[in-house]
């Protein structure tokens, strides 16, 4: 028991002494450690990204599903190429053959998609491109969501900031009353197990 206490005191004291004697060195140490952690996390993310890009890139089946998922059936059924179950569909088979040929010939995803667009027009793509006006389709939802969320956050923060001033302007808080309120809250929490 004694040795445990002495061990603990030995391990705690130096750092606490260090921080008391020179508070900035502890901060530097912490910053350095965080820097290392962030750097490692970034490395891990980079590796994950590389793995992400490389995995599945060479599997023809996966590529067929991946590219096929980006294409629409052109028969007018308004279904995706892979999802089209149109009975006797005149176009689905041809489109699928074209896709298989593109993959077998070693074309890149972009080349295959460009080939489809050249033949069928932009409507063959299941999603807008990232060029010209089509880019707006991608940006707008995220922009609206971001503006709404940030705006709401700022608004709530503003309200929350002004709240104490409004409260104190209405009725100044008596310290005894505040203490009683806190006791009451605490008691309710204790007895109900809830907030």
């Amino acid at each position, binding site marked *: 028991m004694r040795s445990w206490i002495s061990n603990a005191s030995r391990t705690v004291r130096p750092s606490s002494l260090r921080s008391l004697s020179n508070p900035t060195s502890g901060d530097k140490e912490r910053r350095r450690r965080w820097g290392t952690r962030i750097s490692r996390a970034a490395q891990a993310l980079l590796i*994950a*990204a590389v*793995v*992400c890009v490389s*995995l*599945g890139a060479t599997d023809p089946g996966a590529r067929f599903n991946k590219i096929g*998922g*980006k294409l*629409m059936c052109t028969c007018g*059924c*308004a*279904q*995706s190429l*892979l*999802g*089209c*179950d149109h*009975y*006797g569909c005149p176009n689905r088979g041809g489109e699928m053959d074209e896709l298989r040929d593109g993959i077998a010939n070693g074309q890149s995803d972009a080349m295959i998609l460009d080939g489809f667009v050249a033949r069928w*027009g*932009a*409507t*063959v*793509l*299941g*999603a*807008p491109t990232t060029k*010209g*006006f*089509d880019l707006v*389709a*991608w940006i*707008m*939802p995220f922009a*609206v*969501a971001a503006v*709404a*969320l940030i705006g*709401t*956050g700022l608004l*709530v*923060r503003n*309200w*929350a900031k*002004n*709240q104490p001033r*409004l409260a104190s302007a209405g009725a100044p808080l008596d310290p005894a*009353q505040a203490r*009683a*309120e806190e*006791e*009451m*809250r605490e008691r*309710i*929490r204790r*007895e*109900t*197990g*809830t*907030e």
Partner: protein
Amino acid sequence: MAAFGSFALLIGLALAAYNLFAGGVALRLLAVGGPARVSPERLAETARRAGIAGFFTVSAAAFALIWSVFHNDFSIEYIVEHSNIALPAPYKFAAMWSGQEGSLLLWAWLLAAYGFVLRLTHKTDVKLYAHAGTIMAAVQVFFLLLLNFAAPPFSLVRGGIAPPDGNGLNPLLQYPEMVIHPPMLYLGYVGFTVPFAFALGALMMRYPGEKWIHITRYWTMFTWMFLTVGIFLGMHWAYAVLGWGGYWGWDPVENASLMPWLTGTAFLHSVMMQEKRGMMKSWNVWLIFATFLLTLLGTLLTRAGLVSSVHAFAQSSIGDWFVGFMLIVLTVCIFTYILQRDHLKSEHHLESLVSRESSFLFNNVVLLAACFTILWGTLFPVLSEYVEGTKTTLSGAYYSHIAVPIGVFLLLLTGVGPLLAWRASSFRSLRRNFVLPGVAFVVTAIVLIAVGLKPWADEGVFYSLMTFSLATAVATAISSEFLRGAAVVRRQTGKNFVASTILLIRRSTRRYGGYIVHLGLVIIFIGFAGYAFNRTAEKSMGPGDKLLIGPYTLVNLGNTQESNPNYDSEYSLLDVYENGKKILAQPMAPEKRVYAVNGQPQTMVANHSTMRWDLYLVYEGRDSTSGLPIIKAFLNPLVSWIWIGLAVMVFGTLVALVPSLSPMRAAVAVPVPKSGPMAGQAAAMGVSMTSLGGGD
């Protein structure tokens, strides 16, 4: 019968117009006061009675159409277009809403039915109900104008000679769900007219307090429940009938039903802030206005041919009518809001960024962002055609990038919101409430990666991993709320755990019903997350041929053809083996039908559903070279969770609709000071003993 139906609709229009006119005059007289030739109260009463009578006339018209369908009255054009002699009886009901005229009549009839109940219960608050009834009459006038002049369901066939048989019902609609899916959806769509009418009426008359919200709460929840069920029945129908292996295709018609659901859900949440804290009044009013307008927009999108859809079974030129009506509604809403906006000032503001109120607000913002995304995606093809001259296609590939992240964020908020306290959450309570769900999230993510999920390999897998982990965290949070509450009740009453949980729920049905709804949503999201792992296999199969998919081996027993008066069919019989053992007593039979009356084909999917996955088989047709049937097999993980989640959501909504056992609070054996500063302060703090179960 055609004359009877037409006449009933005409009388219905006259009654609705009288209801609107007399009700409007009476309310105006009541508002300005002073002497009047006619007693405004008596005038308002005649308007109410006209509304009640209107229900019977529209019911008579609906009856006339059903009667005509069942009696094969092919002198009526609508019956010729949507029915035939061989059509089975349940689908003759479905014929009522399979075409535009019929579905408008269904809309008008449901509106009349809602109005009937509303007008019968007017004694709750005569003046408010008179306002709501008059606004509903205005909506009814619009639909009856359509039915009488733009899309009459009782038009006679051209030339006056009835054909011997009709064209039959669209084969896609000949499925059991189609008998109940549209009425459910319409109950939801039309039902939102009631809270809209109450909100607009309360604003017009500067209704004091929040009582109108209490009055409309049941209407709104009831409506929301029907819309939810309607949407999911539609998903199930698409899954079982369209035969593409999925349940949601982001089709404009599907989107049209989802948008009012999203704003309605936002309203259900934010309205609690108005009830409890007198906040967000303008926001709530606009949410319900937007919800109502979106129900009209949905109809406009699908009926007016503005956007193309595989689900749009009826299109015409009534779009102009809808645009006109929507503009009138929007003008009235804006005008009333500007005139009465000082009545909507909030009594309180949000006090903390970390509180139940702000979580509701963020939840609202995310729901509206989701709604905007869907609206944007639905209208973008029209916009791109206008700007660039070519229609850009926005399929599931687009929405999976845009809507899925928003959905996952919404799931996160589902879990976070209930863990926060009203007004402000202390750091200690945050730590206490979030540790367990946080641990559940991390552990689930680690376990899933350990068992082979690679979130870095595929975007879909990444979102699935996030969804599974968040679902576990939210389920943990909800479960801990139940456990904590039940433990307190158990301590107080000495009952066993199950009885304590039931008592806890009964004490605050709304709060715990809401939690059950959230739990249902979690289960549904788990089902959605399975989509990333779907597998397919396809093969031309003769007798004895095998098809492998996942752990299953499908063995073709033979291919058969059958005929009946309604359709000819081809189907394959396939035995299913797992690890060499036959797992189904009866073979699966994916089928293709071709309907005799119009030659249209129809897929009948064979589905073996388990908790783990669905084995979903489609008869795709015959191989052009070998002549053998092409069988496409899908292995869709966790789909049954979606339907189970729906059942849980409906159960939760029903629980929330049951009144709470509020008098029981008095029986709780907790020594609370009956008087004195502590009790007063507790009440002022909004943390009274009702927080045991009344916190919602």
